[in-house]
């Protein structure tokens, strides 16, 4: 089950990157806020149809769950706003790398303490090495992108 979930999430990452390319192209003509709005709006439309046909849960239970769980929608918007603020000052690559670092560290911290009732996975030596490899990977991304840029400039 675990492996299957990981593959499923990999596909999630693939669609996310396709989304950012598509939205990047669209926002050049339509604007950033307009693009984000349209993304959310069309997403809502698709999901409305999905829920009508396949929804097994209960949307109305939204009124009964703890309000702090509803604040997650603000976190997504916060991500967008903070990214938009950082990109002009430090560039897309640095923003993405810092973003990924924050995502990974907090992900491991949440697992360790089991916050929000999530699975408790302790931070052990194996996970320390995993973090080291991720930092190494971020370093390679930085180097790789810098080199691509240099090649582009010399052309």
């Amino acid at each position, binding site marked *: 089950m675990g492996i299957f979930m990981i593959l*499923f*999430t990999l596909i999630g990452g693939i669609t996310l990157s396709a989304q950012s390319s598509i939205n990047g192209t*669209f926002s050049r003509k339509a604007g950033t*806020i307009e693009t984000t709005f349209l993304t959310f709006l069309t997403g809502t439309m698709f999901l409305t149809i999905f829920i009508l046909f396949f929804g097994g849960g209960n949307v109305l239970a939204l009124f009964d769950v703890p309000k702090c769980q509803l604040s997650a929608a603000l976190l997504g918007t916060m991500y967008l706003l903070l990214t938009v603020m950082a990109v002009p000052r430090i560039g897309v690559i640095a923003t993405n790398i810092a973003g990924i670092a924050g995502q990974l560290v907090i992900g491991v911290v949440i697992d360790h303490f089991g916050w929000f009732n999530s699975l408790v996975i302790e931070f052990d030596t194996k996970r320390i090495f995993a973090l080291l490899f*991720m930092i190494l990977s971020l370093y*390679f991304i930085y180097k790789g992108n810098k080199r691509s840029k240099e090649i582009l400039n010399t052309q």
Partner: protein
Amino acid sequence: MRFISYILALLAGAALSFEGAIYAELGKTIGQIETSFYNFFMGSIIMGLLLLFFGKGKLSYTFEAPKWSLLGGALGVVYLTSIVVSVPFVGVGITMVAVIIGQLIMSMVIEHFGWLGSKKTMINKEKIFAVISMIIALILIN
């Protein structure tokens, strides 16, 4: 000032992990597709307000744009639903690493071929090393 921008970007990433963990919990009570729906519905309202007050772009371009460039929302749905489904099974850490690997590989491929209107950038040695290191991290974290 640059230092603050790095902190902002770090916080942005942290927000994504928190979001994943909280939505996983919400998904257990109201259902996973319903959680995605809530996210996009709320997002539409928040962005709709921002658009009304601060929008400087051209929303009407939507009707002139090539149709494939309108698919961002549908793709975002796949991403969010996969997170809500996966976190309760494998935890936030593994989920985030898997998402990042998917993103890394796909963006390399997209840029290599210059698909979807992106600028063409060749895959190089460093980028392949980056993916390999990430995959090692995923194996270790599992």
